[in-house]
């Protein structure tokens, strides 16, 4: 009983607040039109229009929250903050598919919100009207009397109290029965209009994952650098120090000593040397030290200088890149140049690198005989694997007779 009353009360409040907003919604389209047209007034619209659209989003989000609260469901809020700068605001406005949804909702709200709001108004005004008729019928002029039950004139206390009570009871019953359902229906329709479609939610999720992957990539890169440095300053240095002492110890023994001690020292010394070589190889394949020392440009210059096929570098403005992307780009160029030297018979190669829309584009071309075959050798496979690990793309163009062009796109947080 109490619960039902609560539902009626909340439903009524929800619908009655929605009524004026439905009326206000009628103004949205004309206002947007004015805003857009005001661009003619020295570009006012350029500044105003994005703000209007952003305000619409705030309003739609408020409606979503209201509806969700009524239905007791949870929603994921949509972005409602405006970017800084007019250019960015317009880009945001044009990119945001949700704006169309907001506009559709406004048009729908004019009809649904108004109808449901008026319904709620009836539910409320009918019993209130009955109450007024029952108590204050005598205040009305005789030739224009108050009516109850949709048309019965009230001219004396009998009808007033009797029929007034009937109207209050009927109206109350109507509100009691219809108000919660009506409110819930309206809220569901509103939410459905503003709820992102499965497709959009997927797109949103992909966006989030892309962002979080960029974060992971950054963290991973920082880790790579740290590990390289730690190994260099720690483990590698310790191994060298051990090897030095073993070397000095071996020197202390006569050259022709073939005793156990000499043998063990030799084995320990040689084992340490193997460990140093292996560790160096591990570090080189994980994060080439030259990258840490000279950055990507320096490392690539080193690659180009050492390339068997004369290579030319053409590097655009690359900015800061995640270490993992730098390492991948380095390995890809190294692998491609090695391939060119081994198989293509090229006399020159060009390495181009640039950054477009949050992607590092690596393009290596050579003037060789072409016909690069992925099934032969592991070069291209290795490049594909490196790129795939970073969700990158690899494009190989190598017609028989050449030239060969390998283009790799690597996403990098911008």
């Amino acid at each position, binding site marked *: 009983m109490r619960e039902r009353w609560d539902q009626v009360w909340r439903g009524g409040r929800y619908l009655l607040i929605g009524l004026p907003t439905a009326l206000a919604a009628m103004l949205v389209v004309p206002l947007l039109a004015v805003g857009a047209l005001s661009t003619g007034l020295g570009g006012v619209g350029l500044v105003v229009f994005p703000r209007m659209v952003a305000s619409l989003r705030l309003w739609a989000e408020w409606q979503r929250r209201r509806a969700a609260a009524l239905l007791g469901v949870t929603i994921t809020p949509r972005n409602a903050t405006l970017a800084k700068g007019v250019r960015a605001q317009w880009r945001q406005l044009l990119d945001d598919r949700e704006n169309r949804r907001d506009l559709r909702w406004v048009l729908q709200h004019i009809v649904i919100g108004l109808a449901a709001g008026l319904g709620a108004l009836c539910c409320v005004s009918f019993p209130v009207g009955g109450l007024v008729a029952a108590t204050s019928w005598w205040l009305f002029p005789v030739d224009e009397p108050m009516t109850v039950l949709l048309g019965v004139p009230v001219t004396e206390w009998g009808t007033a109290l009797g029929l007034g009570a009937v109207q209050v009871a009927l109206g109350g019953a109507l509100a009691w029965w219809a108000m919660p359902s009506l409110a819930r229906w309206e809220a569901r329709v509103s939410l459905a209009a503003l709820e992102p479609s499965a497709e959009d939610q997927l797109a949103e999720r992909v966006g989030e994952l892309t962002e979080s992957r960029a974060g992971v990539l950054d963290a991973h890169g920082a880790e790579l650098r740290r590990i390289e440095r730690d190994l260099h300053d720690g483990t590698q240095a310790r191994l060298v120090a051990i090897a030095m002492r073993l070397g000095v110890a071996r020197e202390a023994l006569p050259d022709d000593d073939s005793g156990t001690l000499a043998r063990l020292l030799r084995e320990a010394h040689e084992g340490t040397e193997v460990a140093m070589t292996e560790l160096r190889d591990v570090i080189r394949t994980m994060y080439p030290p030259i990258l840490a020392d000279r950055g990507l440009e320096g490392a690539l210059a080193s690659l180009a*200088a050492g390339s068997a096929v004369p290579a030319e570098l053409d590097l655009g403005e690359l900015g800061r890149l995640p270490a993992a992307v730098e390492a991948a780009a380095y390995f890809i160029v190294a692998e491609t140049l090695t391939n060119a030297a081994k198989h293509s018979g090229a006399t020159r190669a060009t390495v181009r690198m640039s950054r477009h829309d949050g992607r590092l584009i690596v393009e290596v071309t050579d003037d060789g005989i072409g016909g690069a075959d992925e099934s032969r050798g592991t070069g291209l496979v290795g490049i594909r694997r490196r790129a795939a690990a970073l969700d990158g793309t690899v494009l190989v163009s190598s017609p028989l007779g050449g030239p060969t062009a390998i283009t790799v796109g690597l996403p990098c947080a911008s």
Partner: protein
Amino acid sequence: MRVVIAEDNVLLSAGLELLLGTKGIDVAAIVTDAEGLMEAVERHRPDAVIADVRLPPTFRDEGIRAALAIRQAHRGLPVLVLSQYVEKVYARELLSDGSGGVGYLLKDRVSRVGEFVDDLRRVADGGTVMDPEVIAQLMAGGNAVDALTNREREVLALMAQGLGNTEIGKRLFVTDNAVHKHVGNIFSKLGLPPSDGGHRRVLAVLTFLDSAR
């Protein structure tokens, strides 16, 4: 012989001092950065400098730059650069002034005490010593060396490691005379002038480094 060591890792500088001490080489000073190295060289006027590639403050290639600066300030003061990895570009930069007295070795080599001290002395005497790993990198990439025969390549690699004709002959089990002939062929194939002199060996290695493409 007196040397100055630039190495920021105490473990390694102490080890180096110990090791050089056993061979009668005097360590005049141990410094931990490039600036200190400059001062120490001014003060102690050593016969050679041993420098780590990564030095403070950025721990990148300070050692290489310090080596080049010292050689400019002190006309070809012999410098032996040590590193935990080797890069051809660094080798080329170190050799770029065309005069000898330069070494570039992996730190691993230090523990072969006898060979390391020989290398150090060669550098101090104006020779050029390149780590076998640098040579291997060059051989792996190289087209310029395609013009050389296998034997000439072996000779060039040993030459780059700082060995003289006699030592090369011993290692390859051939006579001095044969080595001399190979060296002459290498010089002419790499387009170096036939005039004699130690510099030509440096130039050969440098050409080798430069043309390994």
